């Protein structure tokens, strides 16, 4: 299945990637998608192993299962205000 990856702020700077469509194993978890990404794309090596993620614009646990077309965002610790 295909998911859309989004990166922000420091994580975008570290990888040089803001948005990316990636192929992952059907029904895999966010954690599994990230592991596969780190193994196959060296740009993601500097992202923490367990970053904060949001799936479809809601904070989610890393073990949440993904569906085709999901949007997975990797979020550095937030600093609004």
């Amino acid at each position: 299945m295909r998911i859309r990856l989004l990166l922000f702020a420091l994580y975008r700077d570290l990888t040089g990637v803001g948005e990316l469509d990636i192929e992952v194993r059907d029904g895999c978890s966010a954690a599994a998608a990230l592991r596969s990404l780190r193994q196959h794309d060296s740009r993601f090596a500097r992202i923490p192993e367990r970053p904060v993620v949001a799936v479809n614009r809601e904070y989610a646990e890393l073990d949440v299962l993904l569906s085709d077309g999901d949007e997975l965002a990797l979020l550095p610790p937030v600093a609004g205000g």
Partner: protein
Amino acid sequence: MFTQVTRDVIEPQAVLGMIGSAADGAVILFLGTVREQNDGRAVSGMRYDAFVEMAESVLAGIAREAGARAGSDRIAVVHRFGELAIGDVSVAIAVSSPHREESFAAARYIIEQIKQRLPVWKQEHYMDGDAEWLAGTVPPIGA
């Protein structure tokens, strides 16, 4: 209730104009502004990055929670992103309620929750040409 995440300059008077009612005896406006200095370093400006669509939804949720606690729907919150100069308003929170306790508590709740949960990031630009993403807060998941 009004919430917005925007690249536009925030006009405090406009945010204030969105709340208030003949039933309310208290109004609070809180503004966050860009400081010229942080941790002893001279700051030239600040870049706010935002996951805009998610931030809009998180901000609306925060305002709803504050409204439920305060018993008031007279709440307006605007958070800016993009390039800000010293003195620029980064966030404006306006609340009105019959009595002052609720307005103070709601404004305080909203700014604390913004700092904990809003998917927004700050990069400080320093006078010496350097720039740095500020260390942030890990949001409580499930919020």
